[in-house]
């Protein structure tokens, strides 16, 4: 990145409802938001880039790097539009990806459906071989059983193959041999090795990850090559990098080899932005709150680092419920995503309770107020009724809103059934969605052993600044930061992401039988793999490394992530690992269990480029009270009344400007509601900071 630091950089994030672009030219940041063109996503990308280039008054030749994140990989999995894929498995164990966890994720719905596996049973092919948990060969690979598959591949028109043999995370030799045999016969076949994309214990999750990678690989390879060509045709000469779910960016080559790491890249960008802001504003503990058109994403950030994880579920088919999607074991930023966005639809249930989401009106037909044929009341409709949104300037004036449509929808579907007037019905909808988000944040925090008190909220995404003060009320949070370009936060996050790559290996090790030498050899191998990938994009730029162990007490079912030192490990380090585990366990659960042995299931190693040191925000000069550009009333949830408030145009507010709630701060891609309980000021970096007024 250092080579192109002087040039402008551009980031494009395709989301479920909007496609966002951010261009950074020197210290100027230019942002744009257009509706996602679901059917031909690259058309939206090109349109948005054109708009943003014009706004920024730069040409493609001025751009040093394009960073792209897309929901295309996720959508291919949701809509089942990937390649015809086969899965090669160990004989006798053909059905792991279909049996899944043998459970129901929804206890009371007897009609519950499970997500069908990406590879149907007739394309799951056994080969004769068997390893044990140590990776020792119990049954050698019968190569004839592999060769027999070559004709099957042709006969069924299979484009892509995943190989997922039992215990291959411990010894990939059989998987590699199967790949060699197939590749020799069918050089054009796409081949994914589970032991490469996800060398981790647990056959269902590993095979699911490998199948998904194989399933989207031909499509993503084609899309990325095509987009790259379109960009070249526009006059771009710079490289195209892809945002990954783990929060790093990577080259096209790596992205095409591991397309599964491209899922959920938008939300990862948001978390990277919030982490950066935490460092700039010296906020040790942050709750990142990203609310867009379809969902809300909540992420905990401590000391400028988001929590990371390796388990994720994509394409949930049942109300965003855990277990209703396909599990992926890839590096992800740990966050909770709930069906609470501007487009989330409100209902009244059998108990006369208002429920909101997870169904979303999306961009087509969109909320009732878009007036595109959507009659269902949504959160955006409630926000409009409550005076939080100015219909004239929504999405920079590019989307016209019809307030009467919103009013009709809210009144008909919520107000009338409950005997509530229009403002109260809208309030009920907004209050319920805010409550859902607050509850999700609390449960997420407890799952991670974290506390929410004392955190600052970083709010971005088109809908978050509308709801932030109420969410802060519910979570007992006293400070909110709304960054510049908050409406396109994820795209800005892409600009801040390092070039990074994480490698995982499963090697079971009990601390009572600790083997430092084995660990050193393993880490060396992982380090060279990760470094190789990062160097492709980063050249000689300085990098840093982190190592983690996934540990648990023997007999437990969940592992916790423990930070490891970056150095050679000696036999005495067994005690160090024990102490690190004890500390992490205590942090999560408040105590340890003396006398119980500890085991490590998996190890990860990440190499990433060094981030530019954050510019800490200095105290801005004091300025006289800012001048409002108008006046509007909005409904205040705390007092359950409309309040009159001045409207400020955010670009008019310079660092040091102060204003008192109630107030409305409008900008092109979002609006910040400053409730009567908050005051706001602009910090030295131009961020809008809301502080709870001390009573």
């Amino acid at each position, binding site marked *: 990145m250092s080579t192109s630091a002087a040039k402008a950089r551009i980031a494009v994030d395709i989301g479920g409802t909007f496609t966002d672009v951010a261009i950074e030219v020197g210290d100027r940041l230019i942002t744009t938001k257009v509706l996602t063109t679901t059917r031909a996503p690259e058309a939206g990308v090109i349109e948005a880039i054109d708009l943003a280039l014009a706004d920024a008054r730069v040409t493609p030749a001025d751009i040093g790097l394009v960073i792209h994140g897309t929901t295309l990989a996720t959508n291919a999995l949701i809509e089942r539009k990937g390649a015809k894929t086969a899965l090669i498995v160990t004989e006798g164990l053909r059905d792991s990806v279909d*049996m899944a966890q*043998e*459970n129901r994720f929804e*206890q009371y719905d007897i009609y519950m459906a*499970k997500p069908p596996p990406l590879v149907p049973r007739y394309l799951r092919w056994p080969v004769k071989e068997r390893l044990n948990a140590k990776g020792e060969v119990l049954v050698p690979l019968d190569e004839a059983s592999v060769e027999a598959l070559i004709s099957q591949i042709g006969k069924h028109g299979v484009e892509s193959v995943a190989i997922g043999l039992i215990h291959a995370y411990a010894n990939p030799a059989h998987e590699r041999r199967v790949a060699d045999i197939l590749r020799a016969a069918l050089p054009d076949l796409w081949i994914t090795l589970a032991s490469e994309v996800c060398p981790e214990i647990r056959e269902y999750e590993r095979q699911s990850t490998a199948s998904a990678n194989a399933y989207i690989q031909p499509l993503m390879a084609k899309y990325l090559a095509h987009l790259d060509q379109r960009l070249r045709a526009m006059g771009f000469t710079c490289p195209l990098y892809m945002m990954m779910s783990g929060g790093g960016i990577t080259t096209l080559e790596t992205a095409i080899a591991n397309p599964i790491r491209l899922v959920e890249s938008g939300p990862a960008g948001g978390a990277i932005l919030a982490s950066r802001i935490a460092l700039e504003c010296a906020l040790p503990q942050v709750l990142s709150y990203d609310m867009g058109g379809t969902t809300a994403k909540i992420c905990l950030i401590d000391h400028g680092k988001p929590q990371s994880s390796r388990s994720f579920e994509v394409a949930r088919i049942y109300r965003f419920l855990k277990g209703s999607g396909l599990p992926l074991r890839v590096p992800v930023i740990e966050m909770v995503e709930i069906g609470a966005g501007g487009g989330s639809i409100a209902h009244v249930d059998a108990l006369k309770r208002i429920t909101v989401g997870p169904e979303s009106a999306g961009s087509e037909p969109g909320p009732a107020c878009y007036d595109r044929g959507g009659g269902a009341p949504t959160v955006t409709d409630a926000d409009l009724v409550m005076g939080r949104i100015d219909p004239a300037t929504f999405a920079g004036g590019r989307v016209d809103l019809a307030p009467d449509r919103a009013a009709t929808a809210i009144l008909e579907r919520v107000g009338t059934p*409950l005997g509530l007037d229009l403002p109260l019905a809208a309030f009920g909808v907004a209050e319920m969605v805010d409550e859902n988000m607050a509850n999700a944040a609390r449960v997420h925090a407890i799952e991670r052993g974290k506390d929410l008190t004392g955190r600052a909220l970083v709010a971005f995404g088109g809908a978050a600044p509308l709801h932030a003060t109420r969410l802060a009320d519910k979570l007992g949070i006293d400070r909110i930061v709304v960054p510049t370009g908050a409406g396109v936060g994820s795209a800005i996050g892409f600009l801040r992401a390092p070039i990074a790559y994480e490698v995982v290996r499963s090697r079971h090790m009990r601390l009572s039988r600790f083997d430092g030498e084995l660990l050193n050899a393993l880490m060396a191998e992982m380090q060279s793999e990760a470094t190789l990938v990062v160097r492709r994009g980063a050249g000689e730029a300085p990098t840093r490394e982190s190592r983690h162990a996934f540990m648990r*007490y023997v*007999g437990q079912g969940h592992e916790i992530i423990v930070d490891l030192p970056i150095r050679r490990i000696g036999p005495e380090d067994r005690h160090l690992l024990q102490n690190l585990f004890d500390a992490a366990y205590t942090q999560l*659960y408040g105590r340890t269990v003396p006398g119980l042995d500890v085991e490590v299931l998996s190890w990860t190693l990440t190499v990433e480029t060094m981030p530019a040191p954050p510019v800490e925000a200095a105290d801005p000069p004091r300025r006289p009270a800012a001048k409002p550009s108008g006046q509007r009333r909005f409904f205040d949830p705390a007092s359950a009344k409309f309040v009159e408030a001045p409207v400020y145009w955010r670009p008019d507010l310079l660092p040091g400007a102060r204003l008192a709630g109630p107030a409305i701060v409008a900008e092109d891609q979002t609006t910040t509601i400053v409730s009567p309980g908050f005051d706001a000021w602009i910090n030295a970096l131009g961020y809008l900071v809301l502080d709870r007024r001390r009573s």
Partner: protein
Amino acid sequence: MQTQDALTQIRLQIMWNRLISVVEEQAQTLIRIAFSTSTREAGDLSAGVFDLAGRMLAQAVTGTPGHINAMAASVIHFLAKYPIGVMREGDVFITNDPWMGTGHLNDFTVVSPTFRKGRVVALFACTSHVVDVGGRGFGADATQVYEEGLHVPIMRLANRGEMNETLLEMVRSNVRTPVEVEGDLYALAACNEIGSRRLVEMMDEFGLESVDELGEHIITASHSAMLVEIAKLPRGRYDNSMRVDGFERDIDLVASLTIAEDGIDVDFTGTSPASNFGINVPKSYCDAYTSFGIRCVVGPSIPNNAGSLSAIRVKAPEGCILNALRPCAVTARHVTGQMLPDVVLGCLHQALNTGVLAEGTSCLWNPVFLGGHGLAGGDAAFENATEFAVNCFHTGGMGARPTVDGLNTTSFPSGVRNVPIEVTETICPLIIWRKEYRTDSGGPGTFRGGTGQIMEVGNGEGAPFVISAMFDRVKHPARGREGGGLGVTGKLYLKKAGTAMQGKGRQPIPAGDSIIMEMPGGGGYGDPFDRDPALVGIDVRDGFVSREAARQQYGVSVDGEGVVDRVETERQRALRAAPPEGPARPRS
């Protein structure tokens, strides 16, 4: 005033939501810190908040229905022994009494008072299944509850914040895995503490002095919502019975379900007497699965609390297997209890014009495997065989639904998750050679019953080992509905010796041999000759149904690739007039 009422209404909704979130946090805490596999991996736990009269206000949605009503009823027993007035801040109460808690000694229920401003404002309760309670270990072989392990009557686990060290020492010295069990007891206390803390924060935020008004709202609203749902059903009495394997003899589960204006009554009069072995069901556990079965089709989205639960009343004569009294053995009570949703759904099928799902495997097939000293059959060659005890959760097929196929290898009514093969093989020397769908096991129907699976398990060290079996539907299959056929029964046998094994009880697997478990399929729904031939074709292509079965059971002619011969299929289907041999139709 009207605005004020509207605001109160919205506020009550918000607080109700919050209370559910509080018990969700309580449950999550327990899942994260528990040691027992079934709690952690399988969600075999329960967590809830109660008012001072012992009425449950909210319960977390967790993996197993077995605790739903059982834990809800247990708090009353605690209050009878320790009234609110004697509770002190930091007190925690505990029991594993099968008849006061959730049906067997492995389940510990812990109740903690929540104090705010020096007063008790609510009670939190939770239940989880601990790894071991001594006695014979997890299995169905005991003849009296005394053999099944340590019994802890209702007593203090903590006194004013001080853990009861005497009790903990007794527990530690009576169980096989003292560290884990003690860890689980701490986890139960800790999760109640989280619940209490969150409730106090909530009361501060909303300025509540008591939860009475909110509690009343929750209970009244839920109860009336249940009555509205029940009112949609035709009143009347609906009878059903189902025969299952039992241990030493077959068991008839007989139910009479009455839909009335003020609720649903279920009477199990006529059910077989208690067994001599540990498959007996204490009444609270019978209530739990009975009410779960009904709630699957009546008001499934209404939250569980005293208001919704009280709309369903259950009667079972004392001494029958569904109301077994002390000293009956009860450890494997799930084997019988998990059959109850099939029984009551069979009653409701007659009342509902939409129909309900067919019978399924229902009881989990969770083999407990044991190895090591004393279990290797005294063979000197295996003196050093690795000691292990693993409980892996697996299951057969679920019954077909009235409009869709039954789910393959999916637990119902229990909601537990399986344990990955690779994890089982990492923690013990067993090798799972085979785990695959069992062709032709799902009952034929317009909608096919869920397919079962075949597992083959051997010892990688070659040593003998032991299975503690707790399986049903080995003799009596799951029945279909509306002309749907029987699911295929399960079986277990030794691979080399070929010897058939029993569905229940401890049995050895000799050195070098392995055990094959063929798990049952679910019953079908509707006449199989009405099944879309294209679906039969896909089933043949995917190996769920053989070509022969497609022809015989479905009248569909299909090649091995799943391509249907339309002409031949029409001809075959026209030939047949009578439905296939199958169970009696419940409606006829």
